[in-house]
């Protein structure tokens, strides 16, 4: 199908873009367009105006800020994929990004666009949740930051006001020696994941897990941290029974059903994927 009639502006600076969002009713930010354009063509979305942020260079960057890596909202997924900084400091993000669509869509798709689209299956929001990312939001009235945990306001709905836009995200790399793994299950490579698991963990000097993050994507209305499963691994030597206990807690997630996939199937995937992801992360961790 064809997109509905719509206005279009292409501001050249962030300030100009924020003025557009403040001044135009029912405006929608157009970043890489890999979801929004499809939604327009399918007439799922009816904005009155598209604010195209593709020509705002100040929104596209990968910045090493010491403790954190800050990524601009307009940074293309392709640039994350090929970034040495991401490969070295945020290896789980690189592993996940290879599952985002296809090369042809990663070339245009953006980090900020994926975060704001907030598809429960999407890889980038899942990793943002796993890394306790901070999201930076701006409007003509000012800026604010919020934790990824507070970003989903509902199914595919970010906690953004109509005049606000995401401008960047900060992710804190884990210490060298940590283990990581991102795994997903989809019918074909590049399809939306039915379920995914992101695991980071670290061993303390006593060879016991002293830091752990387990996140499930695709199972619920938004990516979800599995606090109980994390607790089950913390303080253990991560032996087979410990992994099994944590995975079983992941399998008990409150999973959603849809026309294609029943909740019990997502739960089983959650258990299996989390078990495999924990195992893979353990292989990569320094004990």
């Amino acid at each position, binding site marked *: 199908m064809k997109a509905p009639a719509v206005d279009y502006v292409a501001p050249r600076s962030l300030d100009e873009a924020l003025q557009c969002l403040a001044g135009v009713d029912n405006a929608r930010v157009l970043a890489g*367009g890999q979801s929004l*354009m499809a939604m327009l063509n399918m007439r799922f979305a009816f904005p009155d105006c598209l604010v195209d942020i593709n020509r705002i260079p100040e929104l596209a960057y990968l910045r090493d800020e010491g403790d954190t890596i800050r990524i601009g909202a307009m940074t293309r997924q392709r640039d994350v994929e090929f970034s040495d900084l991401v490969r070295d400091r945020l290896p789980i993000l690189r592993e996940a990004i290879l599952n985002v669509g296809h090369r042809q869509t990663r070339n*245009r798709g953006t980090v900020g666009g994926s975060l704001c689209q907030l598809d429960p299956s999407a890889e980038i929001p899942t990793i943002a949740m796993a890394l306790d990312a901070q999201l930076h939001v701006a409007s003509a009235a000012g800026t604010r930051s919020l934790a990824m945990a507070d970003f989903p306001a509902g199914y595919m709905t970010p906690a953004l006001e109509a005049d606000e836009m995401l401008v960047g995200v900060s992710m804190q790399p884990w210490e060298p020696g940590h283990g990581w793994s991102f795994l997903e299950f989809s019918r074909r490579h590049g399809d939306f994941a039915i379920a995914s698991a992101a695991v980071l963990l670290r061993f303390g000097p006593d060879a016991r897990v002293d830091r752990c993050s387990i996140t499930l994507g695709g199972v619920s209305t938004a990516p979800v941290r599995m606090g109980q499963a994390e607790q089950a691994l913390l303080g253990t030597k991560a032996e087979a029974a410990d992994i099994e206990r944590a995975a079983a807690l992941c399998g008990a997630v409150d999973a959603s059903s849809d026309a294609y996939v029943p909740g019990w199937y997502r739960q089983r995937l959650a258990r299996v994927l989390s078990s495999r992801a924990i195992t893979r992360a353990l292989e990569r961790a320094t004990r």
Partner: protein
Amino acid sequence: MATTQDPRPVHLSVNGKPCQGMAAPRLHLADFLRGELKLTGTHVGCEHGVCGACTVLVDGVSARSCLMLAVQGEGCAITTVEGLAADEHELHPLQQAFHELHALQCGFCTPGILMSLSELLAANPDPDEDTVRDVLSGHLCRCTGYQNIVAAALRAARLLRERDGHAR
């Protein structure tokens, strides 16, 4: 800032030639290429980025032209399947290999696949089969079963290496 739904001029380069056309904001790049610039080699399939038939190169990298507005193409360099062959008498090595190895039947998906593969071979002259298949995962072909497309991509890579070797 004044906004409007009216068509506006779009200036861009297509296959190395400066072009201009009119586009309302809602018009996607694939329809602009086909309807306004009369370059009908780019095919329109699903119009939501899944099938890959409309894939073109935008500033050298592959993109779905159905997921990009024509007005976003202002100032961009677009390459379409019409830009592959040097002239009408000589096929591009990719096209030659597709022809020789029967890598197409109905041909609907072919223009998009050729563009993605031309991007791949420009960056990686000697890809392995897995890499080719990864690129092809962004394209749907319902005729061939992909085997001959993979074979043709690998043969084209060899042809290009030989050609460029001779050139040196």
